[in-house]
């Protein structure tokens, strides 16, 4: 992945080529760069306006939020009270913990299922495996809004209605297909010679997967993990449909259900809660972004 992230190659190009051309390339690049920064600024503004407003609101007291005379975009008397209250009273911490539990469990389950499946589909073949490999992606054609009605009965039959465990059971349907698909792509890009060599060395398939494929495909696995993480963390429809008791809720529904009481929206706390809820994915992306991009590159392009 490290090598791939340097686009600088272009400047160091063209040793013997004509000087004139290099000059024009340089000029072109400078203009491109200026254009780039302008475009960036515009979109960063568009992308960050709501989060900025969220941040400002989260620092306001209820009185300041309700006051219509002020400028809604700035905060005159910043306070951390909303954050403090969220962390010390109510169920926010519980919801956060539930989200963490569900997400970790789902990511773990997803990775085990998709790694095994991707390895088997990309490398080992069995009757119908080719169909399955393309079919995996088609799972997404069946939308959650259709599935949740029959799922009521399945979940009810298992006795898991209004239970956090139901989420751990259902979320993989949203994560596994995409992750398997990324990893099929990644595994297929690994040269065949590697497994032949491993087989000759006397490794069985699990050793091969564990000792060769997983280390080599680490960027792809990380990309899949991050995807699974994002999806599980943000899922809304299933918890909304299946969870009723506040102590079972995850963040996405917990914030809404606990901080909106009738017509009273605790906006300050909602925003504070939302920003804190965004922190884990933000950290994950901040640290693992390069792997993510590299993983997607190899996996997705091979399709």
């Amino acid at each position: 992945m490290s090598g791939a992230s340097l686009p600088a190659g272009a400047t160091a190009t063209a040793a013997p080529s004509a000087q004139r051309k290099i000059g024009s390339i340089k000029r072109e690049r400078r203009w491109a760069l200026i254009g780039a920064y302008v475009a960036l600024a515009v979109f960063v503004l568009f992308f960050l306006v709501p989060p900025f407003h969220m941040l400002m609101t989260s620092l306001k007291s209820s009185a300041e939020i309700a006051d219509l005379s002020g400028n809604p975009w700035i905060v005159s008397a910043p306070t951390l009270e909303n954050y403090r209250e969220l962390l010390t009273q109510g169920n926010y911490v519980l919801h956060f913990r539930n989200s963490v539990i569900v997400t970790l469990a789902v990511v773990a389950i997803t990775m085990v299922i998709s790694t095994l499946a991707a390895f088997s589909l990309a490398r080992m073949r069995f009757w119908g495996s080719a169909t399955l490999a393309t079919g995996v992606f088609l799972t997404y054609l069946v939308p959650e809004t259709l599935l949740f009605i029959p799922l009521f009965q399945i979940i009810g039959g298992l006795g898991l209605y209004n239970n956090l465990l139901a989420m751990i059971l259902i979320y993989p349907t949203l994560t596994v297909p995409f992750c398997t698909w990324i990893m099929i792509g990644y595994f297929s890009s690994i040269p065949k010679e590697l497994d032949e060599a491993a087989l000759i060395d006397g490794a069985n398939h699990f050793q091969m997967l564990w000792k060769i494929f997983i280390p080599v495909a680490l960027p792809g696995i990380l990309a899949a993990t991050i995807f699974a993480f994002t999806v599980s963390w943000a899922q809304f429809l299933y918890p909304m449909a299946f969870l009723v008791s506040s102590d079972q809720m995850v963040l996405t529904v917990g914030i809404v259900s606990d901080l909106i009481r009738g017509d009273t929206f605790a906006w300050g706390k909602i925003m504070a809660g939302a920003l804190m809820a965004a922190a884990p994915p933000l950290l994950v992306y901040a640290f693992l972004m390069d792997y993510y991009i590299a993983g997607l590159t190899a996996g997705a392009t091979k399709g």
Partner: protein
Amino acid sequence: MADGNVITAPGVPAAVAPPRKASTLQRVARRRSTLAFLMALPLLAVIGGLVAYPFFYAIYLSMLNKRMTSFVGIDNFSFLLTRETFQEVIWQSVLFAVGAVVAKALIGFILAHVLHALPAKGQRKWRGMLLVPWVIPPAISTLAWWWLFDPSYSAVNWLVSAVGVPPVAWLGEPSWARFSVILVNVWYGAPFFMIMYLAALKSVPDQLYEAAAIDGATGWQKLRHVTVPMMANIIAITVLFSLIVTFANFDIVRILTNGGPQDKTHIFGTYAFQVGIQSGDIPLGSAVSLFMFPILAVFAVFVLRGVTRRSKEMAG
């Protein structure tokens, strides 16, 4: 892993011994495919038990009458097609999904290019900022947008009036409401495209650009003849994935407008919810949701076939 090892254990000696006889080879192959099947079994269980089975069950449900006491065949579907409201829902879903996906794809494409052109050092910082919308759970960020649009407290209208323009009923007026719903979806989804494209861009070998530059290609020509063909697969897959997800979107519309005003922002998912859950006609709701399937399936088969073809061409 533990069970896995137990299963493979008998296979080890066969693999160790260099295969001499044809029968051994066959046995190895058979054992190998059994093992492969077992490894894919959890995937099959998830898809079969929690997607395929409920899917077929939903098809069955969609063919029942409202009280779910008798079988009515495709009545629900033909009934829906005659409804003016549902016809509008189809049109709105297409408008919403296509509009949002095109905008997301364009913005993602531009941003990926722009980022790619930056020096590696500054890239991280910008990339991080541009990723923020994708990182906040959409159910919550949509709530923040809704608050920005609220008639009494709208911070957006505050800005609008600051420039002297009369306030806009962002969610109250059908065309504005449609615009707002798409806007929020684009805001949330564009970073995903950006990341996917950026990943694709990085995988385009620099030599190709160098070669193009030496041939005197303009920026536009490079884009058209090098970048786009190289990225075709990832563009196709990303668009497909996003189209599916956008078509099936639920939370943004539900939180922002709940389908209103006058059902003008309902899309399949939210309309199915209103009909099936809120009005107590579960079979009809299932039928609404099922309409998505053929539309997307045709598109998906089309796209995936193209992807496979291109991958083969590249490989060959």
